[in-house]
Structures are given as C-alpha cells and as structure tokens.
C-alpha cells in the first residue's frame, strides 16, 4: 500500500512539473492566438487588444498559471481560444477516437509480437533466424510516416479502403452491422500502420527476454528432465521472461494517448492528433495544456500500473521495497 501511495504521489508531482514547464514554454513561444488577426487589415489593434484582455493573455505568467492550475484542479480545463468553448467537451470525443485506434493497434501488435517473439527465440540460428532478423530490421527502419503514406497511396489507387475519417457521411442512417463495418474499414489502415510500427520493437523485446529465460539454469534443468518444449516455453520460460515485458506493456498503456498523434494527422483520423496540432499552430494554449496534462497523466498511470504489476509478479521487488 505504501509503495502504491508513493508511486501515486510521484505521478502527481510529475504531472504538476510537466504542466508548469509546458505552461512556461508555451507562454514564452513567440506570437499568440491573436497574432494572425493582426494580418487582417479589417481588424483594428484596439479590437485585438480587447480580445487579448478578455482571454487574460495580458496577465503575468505566474498569475495565469495559478489561475489555470486552480481551475484544472476543479475539473474545469479552461476555455479554448479558437473554439470559444470549454476544453473538456472538445477533448472527450477526440480522446475516444484516439483510444479506439491505439487500443486496437496496441492489442494487435502485442497479439502478434508474443507468438512471433517466442517462435523466433526458438530459432536462434539458420535461415529462419536470418529471415526473422532481416524482416524486423527492415520494419524497424521504415518510419511509420512512410508506411502511412504508402498505405494511403494504396487506398487511393485501389479504392478498396477509404482514406481518412472514422465514419462515412451516411453513418447515421446505417444499421448496426454496417456501422461496425464502416468503422473497421476506416480503422484498418491507421491501426495497421501503428501496429506495424510497434511490432518489431515488441517482438525483439519478447525474443530477448525469452532467450535470456531459456538460457537460465532452471530452463536447462527442465529441458533435461524431458519437459516438452511447448510446455516448457509457455508454462515455465514465458512467465520467467515477463518482467521486462510488463514494463514494456505499462509503457504501451501510457502512450495510448500520444503514440498515434502523427499518424492521425497524416491519415486523417479524427483523434487528438489533428486537434492537438491545430491547437499548437493556433497557440490555443488551454487545449495544448489539457492534452499534455492528460497524456502525461496517462503515461504516469501506465508506468505506475507496470510497477504495481511487477510488484505483484516478482517477489524480489516486494522484498526490496
């Protein structure tokens, strides 16, 4: 319990520190939301000054931070300068879309990575090992961005899958099955890109952890006792290889809100990515800060979840703490 409380306190401090640094950096960036208006010859300097004052942009940085932090702590995430609307209702639907994409992609990547990693750990020499190494090295070196562009080009050329969006304009009038099919067809490309991006890293970690566990004396002894290799791998070696994978899984959970931002922008997925990018470009700082704080909180929560799982799975950690 003490361990969990200590980790929770660390997570809160991390979020506060990240929010303060982000707030300071955002405020120090040249220009603000109203800068672009200055280029409109029809809008006077007085009107822009009045709008800045209304948004509180003319107050001192510490005053703005304290006001923002206080309202954030009350569950009021501020008002978007661009949308002139509270940030929270703008965030939720986009967060849902992002989570749908990242949860599917992460699950897909893990479901492929574990059997592939375990299998490759058993193929430590020969042409299969070479093939595995080559395939994953190539996949690791291809940027996700390039994959996204290739997949988009495929969609546009072939017409087999739609390019961009989460639902089609006719979505509201569809039946349940057609709705599901519509979402799946639009989810397929960005989810595949993300999963392929994660796959080589995860599979290599699984392989490394499995190899280490397979070389451990207990595994050699088990093999000597004639335990079948499948049983040995999945019942004895895999649980022993779990520690680094649990940490990695926690990290996967923690990056659910942030892992897909760039891919969402490129592939037109209506999640936090395009929303966040536009907010940065427009200097809509209440939105930017809310996204950063939520992403940090989720990252901290993911890491904490991993630590707690490790705590539960590995008695050595319990003993040390």
């Amino acid at each position: 319990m003490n361990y969990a409380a200590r980790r929770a306190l660390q997570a809160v401090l991390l979020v506060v520190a990240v929010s303060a640094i982000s707030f300071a950096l955002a405020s120090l960036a040249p220009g603000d939301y109203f800068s672009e208006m200055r280029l409109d010859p029809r809008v006077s300097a007085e009107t822009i000054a009045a709008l800045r004052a209304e948004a509180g942009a003319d107050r001192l940085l510490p005053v703005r931070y304290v006001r923002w932090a206080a309202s954030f702590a009350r569950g009021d995430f501020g008002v978007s300068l661009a949308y002139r609307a509270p940030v929270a209702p703008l965030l939720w639907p986009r967060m849902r879309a992002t989570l749908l994409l990242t949860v599917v992609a992460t699950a897909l990547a893990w479901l492929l990575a574990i059997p592939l990693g375990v299998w490759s750990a058993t193929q430590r020499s020969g042409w299969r090992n070479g093939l595995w190494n080559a395939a994953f090295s190539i996949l690791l070196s291809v940027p996700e961005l390039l994959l996204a562009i290739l997949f988009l080009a495929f969609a546009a050329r072939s017409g087999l899958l739609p390019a961009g969006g989460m639902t089609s304009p006719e979505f509201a009038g569809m039946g349940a099955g057609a709705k599901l099919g519509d979402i799946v067809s639009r989810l397929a490309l960005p989810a595949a890109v993300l999963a392929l991006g994660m796959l080589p890293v995860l599979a290599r970690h699984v392989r490394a952890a499995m190899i280490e566990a397979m070389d451990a004396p207990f595994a050699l002894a088990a093999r000597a006792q004639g335990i079948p290799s499948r049983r040995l791998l999945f019942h004895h070696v895999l649980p022993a290889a779990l520690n680094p994978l649990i940490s990695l899984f926690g990290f996967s959970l923690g990056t659910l809100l942030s892992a897909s931002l760039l891919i969402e922008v490129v592939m037109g997925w209506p999640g936090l990515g395009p929303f966040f990018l536009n907010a940065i470009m427009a200097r809509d700082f209440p939105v930017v800060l809310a996204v950063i704080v939520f992403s940090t909180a989720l990252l901290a929560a993911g890491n904490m979840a991993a630590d707690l799982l490790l705590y539960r799975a590995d008695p050595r950690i319990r003993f040390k703490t």
Partner: protein
Amino acid sequence: MLALAGSAFAEQEERLVLKQLSGNPGGSLKYSLRSEPKTLNPVTATDAVSKEVIQRLNADLIHINRETQQTEPALAKSWKVSAGGRAYVLELRRGLRFSDGAPMDARDVVFSFQVYLDEKTHSPQRDLLILNGKPITVRQTGTFQVAFDLPEPYAAAERLFDGFAILPRHVLEGVWKAGKLADAWGLGSPPSQVVGMGPFRLKEYVPGERLALERNPYYWKADRNGNRLPYLAEAVFTFAGSEDMETLRFQSGETDVISRVGAKNFALLARDQAQRGYAMRALGPGLEYSFLFFNLNDVSHLSLPQVSARQRFLGRRAFREAVSRAIDRDAIARLVYLGYAAPLAGPVPAGNRAWVNGSLPKPAPSVAAARGLLAADGFSWSRDGALLDPAGARVEFSIVTSAGNADRVQMATLIQSDLKELGIDAHVVGLEFRSLLDRVLRTKDYDACLLSLASGDADPNPDINVWLSSGGTHLWNPGQQTPATPWEAEIDGLMRRQMVELRYAERKRLFDRVQAIAMRELPVTPLVSPAILVGARQGLGNFRPAAMGDHVLWNIEELNWQARPGGAGR
C-alpha cells in the same frame, strides 16, 4: 410586438427569383474543409474555415456577387443613397422567414447591427462599421425598412453590408442581453438553436470529422420555374486536415468539389480526371498575391543593431528597385506554380479586374539593369563579386518566410538565387507562421519578409490599413504617428480621398496613382498571383467557380446534380 410579428408573418413572401436559373432538386454535396471550423457564430468568427460554413447558414442585406464582383440585392430588395452618400435607406423583402420558420423584419436587422457594434461582444467585424472613429448608426424606419447613417461619405458603402449576417432576434436577444453572445452557437450547439437566413441549416456535427447541413425550407431565392432554392437536400463538410488529404478524398470520390488546390496536386488530379469522373479547372489569377517587403521601421529605439546596420541599404530606393529588377517572376510562376500563376506588375493582382492598374509596365528581369541602378547609387563590387553598399560593407540580409508553406520557401530560394547574380548574399530563414508575424509586427527583428495575402474584397477600402501609414497592416512600417516619408504621406492623402469619393472613375484614378507610387518606391516587391485551381465531379450543374471568396461554394444554392446517362443525380 405580437401584432407586429403577426403582420410580418402574414406578408406575401417576396422571393428573389433568378430568371436564368434551372436545375434538379435533391442530392447531397460533399466537400472537404482543410481544417475543422471553430464556431458557427457569425459575430465572433475569425478563421476562414468557420466563415466558409457560416456563409452557407446565413445571408446579408446586400451581397457581393463573387462572379461579377459587383453588389446585388439580397435580403434588402433595394436601397437609396442620399445626403451626399451619408444616408442609406434599405427596403427589406417582405414575408421572409428564418430557418426555424420565424419571420424576419427590420427589428432583426437593427438587432444584428446593435450586436456587431456592441464593444462587449468584441466582434472583429465591428471595425468595418466605424468610419473615422465614429460608428454607423442604424434605425428602423418601417416594418421592412431600415436606415443607416454614416458619419461621413464612404465610397461603395453598400459593399460593407456583405458578410454581415442578419441574426434572429428571437433566438439571440436574450443571450446578448445576458452578455453571452460571444459564446453562443459553438459547434456543440443543438441544430435547432442555430438559426439563419442562409440556404442551409445545421443538421449534424461530428467532432473532428464532419458537419452536415440540410436544406433550409424557408430560403428566399427561387429559380425561373418558381422552385425554391437550394436544389441540394444536403451539404456535408468533412475535415481533411491538409491539402494532400483533401486531394486524396477528392481523387477517391469521397468528396464532390475541391478548391484551393496547389499546383502540384492540381497536376496530379488533372492527369486522370477523365477516368475518375471529375473535371479540373484553372481559372487564372484570383485576389491572392505574394510579395517581398523590407523592414523600413524606425528601429533606433529597439536595440537591433544588425537590422539597423542593414537598413542603410534596405532603405535605399535604388536598392529595392534593383532587387525587383533582378527577380525573375516568370521563373517563380513556372517553377513554383508549374505555370499556374501570373507575374505581378503591381501591388494589385490581375484577378481584381476593377482595380488593377493596367498601365504599370510588365516586370522584365534584367541583371544588367539592376547592376546599373546599384552602381549609379554608389554601390560597388568586391574582387570576389560581392556587392558592397556605399559605405563599403558587404550587402547581406535574410529573408524570413513561413516554413510551413513550401511554395513560399521555394519562392524565397529562387529569389536568393536571383540576388546572387547581383553579388547579394541573401539567407532564407523559415519560421513558424506566428513566430514570423511576431517578428514582423511586434519585435521588428527581420530584414526582409516574403508573404502572401488574399484580399477579402476587390474594393480597396477594406484593405485601407495596408496603405495608410498609420495602419496596423502597413507591413513595412506599421502604425506610424506621422508619415515617415513624403511618398507615404501622398499615398495617405490619395487613399483618404478615394475612400470618400463616390464616383468610380475618380476613385480608380486615385487608386491607380497609389499603385504607381508603390511601384516607384517599392516598399513591397510584388511577385506572383497564383491561379485559382478547382475541380468538381462531373454532373454538378451550375458550377461556376469565381475569383473571390471560397471560389466554389459562393452559389451553393444553385448547385445541383444533373441526370446522368444510366442513372439519376447523386
């Protein structure tokens, strides 16, 4: 009040009949916006994308026809001007209704302008209603008549009415009185509460994805057969996020119309237009223009010694003229815009047919002439060919431009190459757009800047702050207390005269003179005006893209799907 409302409702509807127009009712039009609109509130909207949607939901009293660039009756069926251009009396159409079925009359018009003029709502459009520091006043002179009193004559004042959406008093008066109008009509508002006089009304908003509009059954325009417009039953705006994604969606058939396509994507789309069932069109230059300008601000009090040192040559007229002569605008049009751009002879693009000064000489690049100008002004060259200013210092400066705009970066790079021929070492510095604006308009820490602007109207008056030395968008030296140079004082005088002159020919003469002075002094070096590149799926009737505004949806109420061989419209 009830009696008045009742009488307005009982009036015979005075629809605007478009006598040449015909089309087929029904169908849906899908169009992608580059980003998500931010609001549906016409009072507070500042971004172009929001305005693009808002214009479909609302109507104004007098409208500028985007095709002819001339004003035409809209909710006001006629108007009279008196008192030397100071008084406008507008006669409203009778029996019109908002999209929720409530009647519209003069009280809605007076209410609308009260809101726009209210300082507390901070409407960016308010400044258009302030002439020489004094507001325009509005009063009701009948159930269907309103009078506008201007503090001073204002040329083409009827153009001011374009873009001022008439608001439903019955929906927004309470919100306004509660001081909440600026927050009204956000994207999350229930569709039934977003009420206007435009051809469509809000049907559905899906965050981050799309916004669907449905036909306004009370719209006040009809075709030659008496059919109420719009023809389309639905218009769906999807949010693409980028020009490339817009291109992909149009190419794959997910959208029906595309606008503001870059030259490279236009060429890509045009390649297989026949097979894919759409037609691409290059309309020639519009109202957008790109230009290079130099920092002519007084920076002596700003601790910018390097900028100040470079102003010794940037401030010389002969230097600016030499730079202008060295730039190969045809090469910019050819290489950056693949030929879909027109070189600029002056600060007004050719797409602005009514106001461009056609007598300005066409730019002809000549390195020899540029070198001659520099030599005559005391510049010289070092042994290694570098240009030296009259004080003997190397001529070296930076050109800042928007890093996110590949066309501008490429233009700046071509200019850098042209200036190399003169021995000038120009450095291209790409900056994020708001950082760029911060430098140009606030810190003044730059030497030269490459930008593009698109005028919202063909008339010079809305852009007056670009020309007046006191203007905030007088980019090369904004917000001067008194004109810094005699030629800026002359431009100030000419612009103020044309602003109150009511005769077009005289205004044109004055504005031609402004353009000639600008090209003589060259605080701004005009570069090119890109062509308007658009496309539409085959079978879209009455598709007449225009130079002004959003180019393709200005007549959305007229667009319709024509019956096609083997099938009905979409």
